[in-house]
């Protein structure tokens, strides 16, 4: 398209878009600044996007203090790693069998899968199920209920449908069984979609807090970073509502709870920022693919 001259309209747009960037990024930068600033100094207010009195004290408190968060951090990492690996294995395996049109149970299993996209039991029946299965306060409660999602399986299957049949046929001629074909041919060829879905699963696992709240509150070892943050938030909410809470958890020594809260927020955000460039590269395809389906 040929170049046109810049008009007032363009300048207004430019200003609006810079506004969007500021509104989106300022809160993150502000919180980063508070987390790196001396707590007493922060209380004076007026802090923007860079710390006034730089200190690591808030982070030292989180990772070195008496009630440190190493265990919660480790649990967050563990559930993310295990949940993503098991989730992607389960989704790709099921997707592969459904991409095989000659599979004898292809149609019934597809139907069973698709129905779950539209019907759900709801909060209480699911809670009762988890209880009946004995998953309360058990690490598996982070893994099993999130193992599969019909949407992910369908996205992966659509991708596998595009892999030329000739490849699998020739492998079959050479005597490969279905599992070998899956593992040695289909998976390597499906890496883009495997990467996309893995990232989604990882983000979902990392961000979960409600399952900890509902199913694993009784086991302190199972607490995650998001849940710890949620507990602190809960306490500050009570305080901001001017209800003095006697049982407010004080993790702080030299620092104050607000600064610590900001530091935890940053720690819980950083992994998302680390995978963001990759997410960003892949997810639009996943989204528009899903959109066409609706």
């Amino acid at each position, binding site marked *: 398209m040929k170049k046109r001259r810049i008009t007032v309209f363009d300048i207004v747009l430019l200003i609006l878009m810079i506004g969007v960037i500021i509104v989106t990024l300022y809160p993150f930068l502000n919180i980063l600044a508070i987390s790196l600033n001396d707590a007493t100094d922060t209380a004076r207010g007026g802090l923007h996007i860079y710390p006034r009195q730089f200190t690591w004290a808030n982070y030292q408190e989180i990772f070195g203090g008496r009630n440190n968060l190493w265990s919660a951090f480790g649990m967050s990492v563990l559930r993310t790693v295990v949940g993503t690996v098991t989730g992607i294995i389960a989704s790709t395996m099921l997707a592969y069998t459904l991409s095989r049109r000659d599979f004898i149970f292809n149609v019934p299993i597809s139907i069973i899968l698709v129905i779950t996209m539209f019907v759900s039991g709801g909060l209480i029946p699911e809670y009762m199920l988890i209880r009946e299965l004995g998953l309360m306060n058990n690490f598996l409660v982070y893994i099993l209920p999130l193992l599969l999602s019909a949407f992910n399986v369908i996205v992966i299957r*659509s991708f596998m449908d595009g892999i030329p049949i000739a490849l699998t046929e020739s492998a079959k001629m050479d005597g490969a069984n279905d599992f070998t074909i899956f593992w040695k041919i289909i998976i390597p060829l499906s890496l883009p979609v495997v990467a996309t879905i893995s990232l989604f699963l990882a983000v979902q696992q990392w961000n979960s807090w409600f399952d900890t709240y509902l199913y694993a509150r009784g086991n302190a070892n199972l607490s995650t970073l998001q849940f710890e943050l949620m507990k602190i938030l809960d306490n500050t909410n009570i305080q901001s509502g001017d209800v003095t809470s006697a049982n407010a958890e004080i993790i702080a020594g030299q620092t104050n709870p607000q600064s610590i809260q900001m530091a935890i927020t940053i720690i819980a955000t950083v992994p998302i920022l680390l995978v963001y460039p990759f997410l960003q590269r892949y997810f639009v395809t996943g989204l528009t693919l899903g959109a066409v389906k609706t």
Partner: protein
Amino acid sequence: MSKNLLPVTPEVNMPVTPTINQTGKKGKQPKRSPGEKNGWQRLKNQKALLLMSLPFVIWLIVFRYLPVLGWTMAFQDYQPQNSFFEQSWVGLKHFRDLFNEPTFYRALENTIGMGILGLVFGTLAAITFALLLNEMRFTKLKKLTQTISYLPHFVSWVIVANIVTTMLSISGPVNNLLTSIGLVDSPINFMARPGMFWGVVTAAEVWKSTGWNAIIYFAAMAGTDPQLYEAAKVDGASRWRQMWHITLPSIRPVIIVLLILNIGNLINIGFEKQMLLGNNIVSERALVIDLYALNYGIGMFRYSFGTAIGIFKSVISVILIVVANSVAKKVGEGRVF
């Protein structure tokens, strides 16, 4: 200016096939390879496939279908220690209780109120943002804006709630801004005003999801026929008029489809935002149906009652989507079903 700015990498060009409908029809592959005469033989040859799918079918039945059977609890006085056959059946008692409880109507009001606010402002914000972004000339900044705009979508509601409470606190940036430009005399305690809670939740929602929700409109805009713009330019239409008369109508089908789907989900707004942003002071305005089910069903061990709430929600959701769909059909617009 390139119209197609979505970062779709070539290697992830997934084939877009109407998969759901395809299951019943014949695929490209032969139904059976030669030499497999009967079902048993085929089954034996497909041992590996069976082993690879069976565990997950069992998983689907346990984790997705068993809870649906749990709906029977709503028609019983469910006691966890008794077996299914020892439960006493009470018919619609729990539904009658539900409809007689004032708290339920408050929860319903809050859910629909926040649902409508979220739907209206969420959709408006996403379409406006997509329209403006689509008009941006400075390509690099355009990409940067888009990339940054969907960042909040990927952080958890816990983090967003932290951000919101920090930004809106008495000495927070929003109050600083408002007082410094003289809009308010004294800082507002946003989080402790029941009347503001719906607004706070909606603002948080818009902040978190506008960039993400805009992607789909933005993608639809990329499909607009460039000739339309050329013709409009020849006729002397300003950029503003082009936006209004070409871009916006061209994405109308997408807007309608998403509206129908979102109206169906009006009552399924969840509880995360309300639970994380709410506190004792605003609880009257923060109680939504899911929280109500959670508090009564699990918090007070009224499992049957909680299940009845869930069923009510599902029924309303189905009604809403059917109504929205038929309205769209009546006025001659695209529809989902």
